[in-house]
């Protein structure tokens, strides 16, 4: 069963409904006004990014445990989607920060740890391009993913552990009831879309890894010609 197309379709539909709801039907935020509507895309992006990177972490453990190319492909696929979502999250956050905090960027603990997260998982993807040996690449990138994942709970709890400008956890306790439903629908939409894209990427990365492992060993290159000083 190929789940990616139904997931992408369902995610896109839910996200469309939630964004129309959040932009045109839900009331403006009491303090921020209409700019508070960024909530319906920013918060679901954050939640989806953290879930997707958690799957990458689980896949890394699976890759180390089983040495299977399917788990190895999942590490790369979910890390890639996680990097795209986290980079998008930083962009959305900086455009929300400008009208509300007065600056696009400040070295706030939540913002800084999120930026570090992008760099760490980007490092995992770069590492996978650098290492040619498939077995070594699987091990090295799985270990790097596990190390990078340490930052995920730090990002999540940064607003609790340190003094921060960032608003508290978005939950029914902190978000008005009129805004909870579109936020919830958007969160499921973004999650389904992200998982669908990650499965699609997993399929193509797995095919690439299989093709790589099936490729015949190349013979050693002949010694360079001695041109006698020409």
């Amino acid at each position: 069963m190929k789940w990616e197309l139904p997931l992408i379709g369902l995610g896109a539909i839910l996200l469309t409904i939630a964004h129309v709801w959040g932009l045109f039907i839900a009331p403006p935020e009491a303090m921020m006004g209409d700019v508070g509507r960024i909530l319906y895309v920013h918060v679901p992006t954050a939640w989806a990014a953290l879930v997707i990177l958690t799957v990458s972490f689980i896949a890394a453990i699976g890759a180390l445990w089983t040495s299977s190319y399917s788990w190895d492909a999942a590490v790369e696929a979910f890390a890639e989607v996680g990097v795209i979502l986290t980079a998008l999250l930083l962009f959305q956050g900086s455009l929300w920060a400008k009208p509300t905090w007065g600056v696009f960027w400040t070295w706030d603990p939540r913002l800084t740890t999120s930026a570090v997260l992008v760099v760490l998982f980007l490092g995992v993807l770069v590492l996978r391009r650098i290492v040619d040996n498939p077995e070594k690449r699987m091990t090295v990138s799985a270990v790097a993913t596990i190390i990078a994942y340490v930052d995920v709970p730090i990002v999540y709890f940064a607003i609790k552990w340190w003094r921060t400008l960032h608003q508290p956890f978005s939950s029914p306790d902190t978000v008005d009831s009129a805004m909870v439903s579109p936020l919830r629908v958007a969160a499921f939409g973004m999650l389904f879309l992200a998982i669908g894209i990650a499965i699609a990427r997993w399929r193509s990365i797995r095919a690439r890894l299989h093709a790589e492992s099936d490729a015949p060993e190349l013979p050693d290159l002949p010694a360079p010609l001695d041109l006698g000083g020409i």
Partner: protein
Amino acid sequence: MEPGAVGGGMIYGGWEYVWVVYGVSWAVLGFYTVIALVFRGRALAAESSLVSSPSAENPPQESTS
């Protein structure tokens, strides 16, 4: 904290930021989805051609008719 300082409590601007955030987010997600599905399609096509192509382990059937 003074109004105008970082986190000073003053709100400047509104919908223009909302449209840019939603526009860029949808554009990035849409473009990435298309790219992911194109590569997936190629991978599935390559997989099915491998399955259907004859090999030493799976030789083509001789026609008996």
